[in-house]
């Protein structure tokens, strides 16, 4: 291979559909520009420049994606590696919108005495003199912005990867920046670094599972492309063992990213340790990208063996819902509680996934699984970021006061903030007239349509358990007395205010008039290969 020189005539340049892939190019391009800015711009200008570049890139990419959706440009691009189909485009828009809100939170500097939530110098030893000097000089890492862009670019790629190899590359592209972001908290740096380490080790472990699974599937099908594997399933006989093993291992890798039980153990620690804006970003965006990636692999490539993997997902779905909602009850930290809540939500999503309500399975009218999942991810993403934004505002001398007991009587101190947080919690609990209810309704319907009604019953009972711990926080905030040393509610800057307001608006609107978004999700149609 090395010494071989190809004659020019045999070489055809790969065909790249630049128009359709432009949103990806914009995001990755801006990320690279951000790195260059980091190297050449003076320190005091960087924050503004990076913020501007990031916001502009996200908005431009979002507009380009919207244009693609409007033109109904759907195709398999880049030599079959990237599938720019309805679900992918829908996911791109949602990811970009949620990232925009997260970036606003990243840029917030007014809640903690003019400093952002990120460590001034990640390399300085926690508690050292260097750290103190950095804080006094108000140094900050503006690299978080390009890192975020790389992460969201990787997520977009992950959600549209039509090839297992690209899927893996995309997974690493979005995971590595997240590992870094997790370890960059300004307060409680040790716990943050521990979280990053845990996330990295377990993530690497899961990646290895995924990679091994990919190798086995390649061994079975002789191809990496999802469509090719699907064809191989239809034509090849024998080799079931290698197929099943590959399916299982790929499943493990993907379910890890989704945060499904029993691959969830990283979630609470990482959510607790990471800087809260990053937690919000991860909770919303990682889950979205991972779920769409999971669905694409299982629906497109492995749809032919669904009877083999369906029982596995049934078990995982039930475990995820039950463990997520029951263990959440015992949590004493707001961020950990929200982490378990996100696990329970992953379980609800899995019910729609396993419902397999698709036109191909004879379900011709009503809500399809893909539609339900896409819609649920929207109704879940906005309140999630909003809730974490609220968490950043309840502070005492040590930073954010995340212990639940510190939230007692918050309704007295700041009725507005507590009211907003209560509204987000009610949405998570799925109380009608909030986004969470319509989302839940959609996934349950998809599950039942596909015949998974026992899962719906389990999900409904778990919703009740979940409602208990959400309500407990509301009781704590509104029905407990304010202690003397209650934490302060920081006055948010425009960034956090906008983020909370957008989350709130989305939660209300999706609860009252979910029709337009549901129809958009329906228009997204099915995955194409």
């Amino acid at each position, binding site marked *: 291979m090395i010494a071989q020189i190809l004659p020019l005539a045999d070489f055809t340049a790969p065909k790249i559909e630049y128009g359709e892939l432009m949103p990806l190019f914009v995001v990755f391009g801006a990320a690279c520009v951000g790195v260059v800015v980091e190297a050449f711009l003076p320190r005091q200008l960087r924050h503004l420049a990076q913020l501007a570049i990031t916001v502009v890139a996200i908005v431009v990419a979002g507009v380009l994606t919207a244009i693609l959706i409007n033109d109904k440009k759907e195709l398999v691009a880049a030599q079959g590696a990237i599938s720019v189909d309805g679900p992918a485009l829908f996911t791109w828009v949602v990811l970009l919108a949620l990232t925009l809100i997260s970036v606003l939170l990243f840029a917030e500097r007014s809640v903690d005495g003019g400093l952002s939530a990120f460590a001034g110098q990640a390399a300085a030893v926690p508690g050292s003199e260097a750290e103190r000097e950095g804080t006094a000089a108000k140094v900050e890492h503006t690299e978080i912005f390009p890192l975020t862009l790389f992460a969201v670019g990787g997520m977009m790629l992950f959600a549209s990867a039509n090839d297992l190899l690209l899927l893996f590359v995309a997974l690493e592209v979005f995971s590595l920046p997240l590992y870094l972001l997790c370890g960059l908290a300004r307060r409680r740096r040790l716990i943050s670094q521990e979280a990053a380490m845990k996330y990295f080790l377990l993530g690497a472990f899961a990646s290895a599972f995924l990679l091994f699974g990919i190798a086995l599937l390649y061994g079975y099908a002789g191809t990496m492309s999802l469509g090719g594997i699907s064809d191989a399933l239809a034509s090849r006989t024998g080799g079931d063992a290698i197929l099943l093993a590959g399916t299982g291992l790929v499943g493990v890798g993907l379910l890890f990213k989704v945060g499904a039980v029993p691959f969830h153990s990283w979630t609470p620690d990482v959510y607790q340790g990471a800087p809260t804006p990053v937690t919000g970003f991860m909770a919303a965006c990682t889950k979205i990208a991972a779920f769409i990636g999971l669905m694409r692999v299982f629906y497109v490539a492995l749809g032919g063996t669904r009877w083999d993997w369906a029982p596995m997902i049934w078990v995982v779905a039930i475990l995820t819902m039950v463990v997520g909602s029951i263990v959440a009850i015992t949590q004493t930290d707001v961020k950990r509680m929200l982490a378990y809540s996100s696990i329970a939500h992953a379980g609800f999503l899995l019910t729609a996934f396993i419902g397999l309500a698709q036109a191909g399975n004879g379900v011709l009218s*009503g*809500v399809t699984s893909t539609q339900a999942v896409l819609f649920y991810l929207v109704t879940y993403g906005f309140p999630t970021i909003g809730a974490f934004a609220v968490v950043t505002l309840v502070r005492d001398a040590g930073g954010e006061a995340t212990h639940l007991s510190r939230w007692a009587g918050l309704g007295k101190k700041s009725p507005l903030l507590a009211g907003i947080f209560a509204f987000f919690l009610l949405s998570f609990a799925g109380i009608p007239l909030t986004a969470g209810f319509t989302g839940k309704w959609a996934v349950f*319907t998809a599950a039942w349509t596909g015949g998974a009604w026992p899962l719906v019953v389990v999900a409904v009972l778990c919703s009740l358990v979940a409602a208990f711990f959400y309500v407990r926080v509301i009781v704590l905030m509104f029905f407990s007395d304010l202690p003397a040393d209650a934490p302060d509610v920081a006055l948010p800057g425009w960034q956090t205010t906008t983020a909370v307001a957008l989350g709130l608006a989305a939660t209300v609107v999706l609860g009252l*008039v979910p029709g337009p978004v549901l129809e958009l999700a329906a228009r997204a149609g099915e995955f194409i290969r």
Partner: protein
Amino acid sequence: MNIGWLTLLLLLPFVGALATMLVPKAKALLAKQVALGFSLVTLVLTAIIAIGYQRNGAEDYAETHAWIEPFGAHFALGLDGVGVVLVVLTALLTPIVMIASWNDAQDGRWSEKSFFAWILGLEALSLGVFAATDVFLFYVLFEATLIPMYFLIGGFGGAQRSYAAVKFLLYSLLGGLLMLASVVGLYVLSARAGDPSYLLTDLMQLDISQNTERWLFLGFFFAFAVKAPMVPFHTWLPDAAAEATPGTSVLLVGILDKIGTFGMIRFCLSLFPNASEWATPVVLVLALISILYGALVAIGQTDIKRLIAYTSISHFGFIVMGIFALTSQGLTGSTLYMFNHGLSTAALFLVAGYLISRRGSARIVDYGGVEKVAPVLAGTFLFAGLSSLALPGLSPFISEFMVLAGTFSRHKVLAVIAVLGIVLAALYILIMYQRLMTGPVRDGIEKLKDLNAREVLAIAPLVVLIIGLGIFPKPVVDIIKPAVESTMQHVGVTDKAPEIPVTEGQK
């Protein structure tokens, strides 16, 4: 899109709630006046609608707007005889509760104006529940009523109020979520049959297989049984009613719990007629247990408000029995019972509330000889108690009689045993009256003030209605009858022909 009468009726209290919240905190009196004003205007509008309904029928009020098309959900409102009665009850009780609880919210956790705003919010949602003709809309409003009630109990009650509020919420959510499973199931069936739609009229056309119908019925029935509440899903009610302010208890027992029995008629019987017939034996037995158990436990209570709560459980047993007896007399009686029970329990709770707020204790042993110190108070209490035990001449008697007569024509044994409930009712009311009001005047009672003008004003309309409808119930029965007949027709049951028919000659 033109706004219909019923939409207007829903919006009015809702706007009132917002307006009340916007009044500055310092002007609590103004806020309360605004709230009362809105509730009175709502009452007037309700009266106009009810009169119009009697004259022109339901067509003028039905309205349907597309809401969430992919779900097949509509914003659809309409009235039938049962709905009208409960809408009127809701609109009537709200201002009465406001007047009676004028000063009750002063030592609550939050400002007084929020108490009144939550009441108006609850009124808006309850009106919507009774008028909804789309299952999805009904479900949404049904669950949403929990939020104002939760804050009313948790914010303005006694010492154990947060516990009671959470218990109330969790029980209701359990029922509601199981119903959600059934609601989702209905959608799936509707989607399989063609275009998904949640309109009641569309769902009634569905062809449901026997097993599916039974499961879906159970989901709905469970939610309503928790709400109503029926033994053994009742334990949240005494806690909630005892901890809440008397006004909140009236709204809870008088209006909110009626959603349960209303839902049984509107949804269980209409959507799942065969399953309803299938479930009759079990439901009737549960109803009978509720009647007797509620009454027996009421006799043993030491707390006035808990006692009244248990009497309501007994009464709800009668209502459910009348519904599932599946006779036109029983159904009419039950619907009338819902209205009358609203009146009599409201009177009982409010007068008990007056008494408790004067003495500062809800324990029966702390009282004695009140009739010597405060005769008007004792008199109204006796009147309310007598109406609660269904004294002939007062309105609850007629409904209780109709329920028993309707049940007797189909289930003789059950009806005979249920009659015991009346005897027990006399016991729990009269024993309570005797302990509280008669005998020597106890310490702490000597200076008890009698009712003031505001308190009398709140009770007066209830007294007038209880007597008026006791003597002449025809207007209400006339409204209920057609709705009951159409429900009966849909379920496919007819009344048993009397064994000794009335012939021309005997007339």
